[in-house]
């Protein structure tokens, strides 16, 4: 076995190829980029340490997303404990734009798990199966969440058109 374990090479490739996507998702959860970076680093470090527990039942990437999302959520919990709340609704507006779009309003109103589904779908570009693996939920839940989101947005847009 290589010094760093059987999956070390794949994990390194994934990190180098997708770091920016992991960073964006962790940032949107934690609320700032520096803490998001820490969460990505910690998530990948945990994946390296626990690679033997990856059973190959789904994509490796989805398994890593799960460790990174958990690291980001843990980081946010620590911030709250220190009375350093993350950005409202867990989303940082990088442009400093105060305008509320229908999408943004809808995202802010979602329960946390559903918000994570949206982020993993549109920020990480994961398919439904990988999102389900990453969050430990059923594929049907992923599908239903995104379907509801689309319907809600369509309704909002029709109301604006009137």
């Amino acid at each position, binding site marked *: 076995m290589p010094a760093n374990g059987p999956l070390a090479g794949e994990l390194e490739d994934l990190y180098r190829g997708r770091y920016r996507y992991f960073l964006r998702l962790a940032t949107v959860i934690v609320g700032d980029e520096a803490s998001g970076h820490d969460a990505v*680093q910690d998530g990948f470090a945990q994946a390296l340490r626990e690679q033997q527990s990856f059973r190959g039942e789904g994509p490796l990437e989805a398994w890593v997303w799960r460790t990174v999302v958990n690291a980001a959520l843990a980081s946010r919990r620590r911030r709250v404990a220190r009375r350093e709340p993350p950005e409202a609704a867990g989303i940082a507006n990088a442009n400093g734009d105060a305008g509320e779009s229908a999408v943004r309003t809808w995202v802010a109103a979602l329960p946390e798990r559903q918000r994570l589904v949206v982020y993993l779908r549109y920020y990480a570009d994961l398919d439904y199966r990988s999102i389900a693996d990453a969050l430990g939920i059923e594929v049907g839940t992923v599908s239903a969440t995104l379907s509801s989101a689309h319907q809600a947005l369509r309704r909002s847009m029709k109301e604006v058109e009137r």
Partner: protein
Amino acid sequence: MIDVEPLIVSELERLLPLPAGGRADWSDVLRRADFVPARRRWRPVLVTGVVVAALVGVGVAIAAGFGAFNGISTAQRPQTPADKIDPKLLAEINAANKGSGLGLIPGSARLVRRLPNARIYAVATKDGQLCVLAARLLNNNGKSDAAGMGCGSPLTQSEPSTAATFARNQSSPAISWGITLDSVTAVSFTAGGHEVTVPVENNVWAYEGPAPTHGTLTAHFKDGSTKPIG
């Protein structure tokens, strides 16, 4: 039916564009995972007929392939004919260190700097150590046939430079040199009672003059910070 997915994608993109990847640092992941080997102090390695006056430094990275060169961009390239160590010198090093398990990988050798009186090579070992070899040093016989080498754990942010000094005799000025991480722009130390600052070029610093006083080496980083190394 309105296809709202492109709208969601563009709106989320507007809210938080894909960040730059400048922070990415795989060696930091390895450290956090505790996948760095126990620190091995930099130690001189025997080279026939050569005295290496002092060797200090350095830290750690990971022992896979040429991971010994992590953070040393100058050494991260394919080997060229100029990088190859003289087979005779290589045989001498191996013979002098027989039984020590040194495990030099000849194919990993990279010539990182040509100095007027030395050639500096980075070489990896089979167990992931970083070795720094100085060859073609001016010997007491007037020929450039001396060599010195030190090996230790690869570089880290906390120990970002190697340091070695060679003097052919007590009346000659010493040559001191070291390999650094990309983030190091200069090193400073006390030599002959004076503070000396030496710039880093292509991951290597070199200084000819009094030998650095032991324990005074400091690395200077791109961001303006400094780190005492020892």
